[in-house]
């Protein structure tokens, strides 16, 4: 956009300069030519008026004198012909056939020299013909001078336009880049980021407007987060108290009246289990909120994903075995990222949970982590039924569950947590169905080996 804008304005300036040059050039040359035309017309008219009535007057002598008076003699041109066409006087060897009553430019031979001149013709009363002319070498010189000057000026102007355009473009782009970088950071989740406001120009005002908008968004987001966190937190605490009360009652009662009121006991045990489940859901919601708020990034360290994959495969191998499934880790080399190893392990564990739960007829689950350019890819591939295409974009939404799996235990928060963890590590979560099952890919930024842990 900026490049096109700058190119457009550069072109406009270039055309303006060219127009000014043309006007100046032709203006100068035409004015000069008009002066010469006026001069030769004046001379011709004077001669004509003086000698028209007097055929025998000394026109020949007059011409001779004009041509030898050293006053403009080298540029003046005269030619006088008799009625029969003989040259009577003048400094032209031949009669230029094209001369007329109006001044014309022609090439003539004057004193043996080929020159360019303006010529005008007058026919005297006795049939004699007079040509008066002015050599143009002077004009040619001026023409060349003006042309050169304009060429040089045009070149310098073009240079200024190009350099100016480049500087202008750089400046605009720098200002825009600043806004874009900030926007990218904000898009990546850093809502506290603001654009530096430099000056009171349009960009400064735009930055101010964007910053104000961000303040408002952050305020709203904080509000929403605060409310949901407060709900989870404030409900969790009394829930915990209810749970403990039930537990305490159960203990006391168990001690005092063992075996009695079994119904109440059973109900209390079931209630505690339900409350524990609720607390777990709240814990998970709070964990997502916590991960999304990005507070962990301060505790990030260098983590070997390959190690985590092997550890999680080991943790889940008994579960896989019980389902007659197998977990295979395909990578062997360390794959480093900056992150929180417990959260990354949590993500892998959640994905393994899913694979074991939803692809339980699939047999083999493959895990791998590898470097892919500037990124690290962590992949979990199962041989299950995959996820219906229309559900793919929604499965990371909190509490979303695919219809056909609603009968299975779960709370619809597993992939939300994975997604939040991946986002927090500056990565993206990609789910897609392959011919054989579901492929989940965590794309994370790679860490350079030189970074301190």
């Amino acid at each position, binding site marked *: 956009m900026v490049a096109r804008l700058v190119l457009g304005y550069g072109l406009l300036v270039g055309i303006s300069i060219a127009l000014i040059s043309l006007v100046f050039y032709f203006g100068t040359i035409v004015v000069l030519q008009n002066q010469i035309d006026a001069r030769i017309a004046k001379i011709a008219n004077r001669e004509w008026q003086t000698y028209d009535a007097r055929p025998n007057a000394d026109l020949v002598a007059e011409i001779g004198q004009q041509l030898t008076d050293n006053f403009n003699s080298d540029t003046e041109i005269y030619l006088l012909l008799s009625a029969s066409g003989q040259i009577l006087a003048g400094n032209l060897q031949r009669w230029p056939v094209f001369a007329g009553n109006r001044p014309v430019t022609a090439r003539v031979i004057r004193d043996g020299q080929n020159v360019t001149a303006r010529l005008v013709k007058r026919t005297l009363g006795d049939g004699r013909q007079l040509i008066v002319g002015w050599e143009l070498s002077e004009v040619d010189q001026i023409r060349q001078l003006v042309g050169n000057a304009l060429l040089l000026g045009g070149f310098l102007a073009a240079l200024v336009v190009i350099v100016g355009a480049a500087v202008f473009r750089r400046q605009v782009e720098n200002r825009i880049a600043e806004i874009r970088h900030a926007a990218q950071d904000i898009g990546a989740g850093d809502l506290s980021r603001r654009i530096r406001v430099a000056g009171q120009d349009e960009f400064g005002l735009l930055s101010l407007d964007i910053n104000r908008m961000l303040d408002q968004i952050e305020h709203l987001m904080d509000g929403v987060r605060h409310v949901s966190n407060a709900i989870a937190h404030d409900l969790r605490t009394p829930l*915990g108290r209810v749970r*403990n009360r039930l537990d305490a009652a159960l203990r006391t009662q168990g001690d005092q009246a063992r075996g009695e009121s079994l119904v109440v006991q059973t109900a209390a045990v079931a209630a505690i289990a339900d409350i524990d489940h609720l607390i777990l859901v709240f814990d998970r919601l709070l964990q997502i909120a916590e991960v999304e708020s990005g*507070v962990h990034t301060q505790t990030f360290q260098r983590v070997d994903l390959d190690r985590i994959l092997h550890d999680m495969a080991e943790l889940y191998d*008994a579960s896989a075995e019980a389902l007659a499934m197998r977990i295979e880790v395909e990578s062997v080399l360390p794959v480093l990222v900056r992150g929180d190893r417990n959260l990354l392990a949590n993500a892998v*564990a959640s994905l393994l949970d899913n694979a074991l739960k939803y692809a339980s007829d699939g047999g083999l689950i493959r895990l791998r982590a590898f470097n892919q350019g500037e990124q690290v890819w962590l992949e979990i591939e199962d041989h299950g039924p995959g996820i219906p295409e229309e559900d793919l974009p929604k499965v990371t939404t909190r509490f979303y569950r695919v219809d056909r799996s609603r009968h299975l235990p779960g709370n619809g928060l597993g992939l939300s947590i994975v997604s939040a963890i991946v986002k927090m590590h500056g990565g993206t979560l990609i789910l897609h169905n392959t011919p054989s099952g579901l492929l989940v890919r965590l794309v994370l930024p790679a860490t350079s080996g030189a970074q301190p842990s």
Partner: protein
Amino acid sequence: MRCLVIEDEQETARYICDGLNAAGYESMACDNALDGETLALSRVWDVVVLDRLLPGKQDGLDVLHAMRQSGVHIPVLVLSALGRIDERVHGLRAGADDYLTKPFALEELLARLDVLVRRQQPVPVARLQVADLILDLAAQRVTRSGRLITLQPREFQLLEYLMRHENQVVTRNMLLESVWDYHFDPQTNVIDVQISRLRNKIDRDFSVALIHTVRGAGYRLSVETLS
């Protein structure tokens, strides 16, 4: 065993103390940081349960700090509603021996306290034995009644942990933290399945079961089948 409970919420404090007393501890509750600090420094306790959010905007970690500064190194379990991972890291770095998030199950708290008070300096032993089960650390071999039992490396570590804490209740989270060295809440019963596989190898072919499930809490390895 004497346990000091620094917790400002009356009901929770009583719940913990009752649980502790029932488990054979002598316990005392204290509801503010100032008294808590004085008491904690008196060196009569075997373990301290410390809440973080105390009256007057006091952080329990300050009490912990004062204890460690004064050279009091008894185990401290921090109990807090501040459950974020960075808060936990913060607490452990401040010198806490364990960190438990509220709401908590009393069994989890008791199991963790039990491990803390019984923790001795790790004695470099060559082998562990419970009844006829022998775990040879040097040879990385497990036998029961003289029969060799083949275990995978992590199963070996799991059994080692259970045997080192013979007669103690260990919870699922404790096993994940100690044996696998990860701290997160697995959504499924992966630890139970691990234990069940280990059981198949250790107990199935023998008349006396050694690995017992403690309802609502976790597991215990012992010869006797206590409740």
